[in-house]
């Protein structure tokens, strides 16, 4: 398991930006992408979509396996949100499998769309 900062701590204006792409090392079979929520204001929402390439970024979301669910993603909103135990969520996280674990030509990237204001956060990618 390895983690890296893919979105440095900062304030990001509303709009769409691409995070990455990042190389997926051989042997990796999944990822999680976490955005810190500590400074994420109420009213600010995001739509995050993750793309997968198996040919070093030449094409995206076009793997041969029909079962691969890319692109995939989430939507989330800022403000204080509590988990089922009444504890503040520290992060919004998306996780999914990455096929072809023996390949060294895999890349992933995230498309982040921010609406409702600017977003202050840090993005961390962890491969599994």
């Amino acid at each position: 398991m390895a983690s890296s900062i893919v979105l440095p701590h900062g304030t990001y204006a509303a709009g769409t930006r691409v995070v990455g792409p990042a190389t997926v090392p051989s042997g990796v079979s999944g990822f999680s992408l976490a955005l810190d929520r500590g400074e994420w204001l109420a009213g600010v929402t995001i739509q995050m979509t993750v793309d997968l390439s198996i040919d070093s970024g030449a094409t995206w979301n076009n793997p041969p396996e029909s079962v691969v669910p890319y692109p995939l993603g989430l939507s989330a909103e800022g403000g204080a949100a509590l988990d089922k135990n009444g504890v503040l969520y520290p992060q919004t996280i998306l996780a999914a499998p990455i096929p072809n674990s023996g390949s060294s030509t895999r890349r992933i990237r995230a498309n982040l769309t921010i609406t409702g204001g600017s977003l202050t956060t840090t993005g961390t990618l962890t491969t599994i």
Partner: protein
Amino acid sequence: MAIAVDARNTGGQTLAASVTAATSVNWNHTLGAALNNGILIVSCAQDAGANSTGVNWDDGGTNAAMTRKGTVSQATCRAEIWYLKAPAVTGTKTIRVSWSGSHEGEGGSASYSGVDQSTTFNAASPQTATGSSGTNPSLGVTTTSGELAIDSAVQDLTITGSAPTKGASQTYIAAGVNTNNTSIESGHSEFPAVGTTTTMTWTMTASGGAWGQVGISLLPAAATIDTSEWRGCYPPLRRGPSGNLSY
């Protein structure tokens, strides 16, 4: 006409996608080009007693709302099964599961051909079971031979969980533990029916918390009768599902 698998997402002991502190999760599913008598199934789970607010099959132009067929809640977790008969658009499109507020959620999807488009489900569907920590999910789904049982099981975790393991005769649609691995884990599977009860089981995290399981059974489309054999005959000859001709 037998029910046939078109695609499963992921078809293994992994989830199509898993989220924490999100208001929706989405993943893509590829429908075969020739999906005769088709159905799209989404099996999902979340960390909430409340149902998800909707599941959509987005073809990029028409955002088709799917229909919830079954749901079960236990403690602070819920499992659901949604369907869309005869999807109008084939190819790769987006499945989106939405909730009210921020939640942990996850799921998978599968598509099948050969499903009865008018009487789609066994009359007993959906059926549910619930249990407490220390027991494993088990649900007897009422079926008849030729049907396809589908289940969704969720466990409310109180400790760090591990991916659920399906019963021996089931096939994974998807399964796994949430990215918040102390929240929920879920398993989603299919099982071709062989009798009047198709029992679907999961091995989940011991002492992990209470669980809920919901199951349905899909009915096969009626066999197409080849009438070319009986022209000119009276009473007419018919070719049955086995291929034999009879009056």
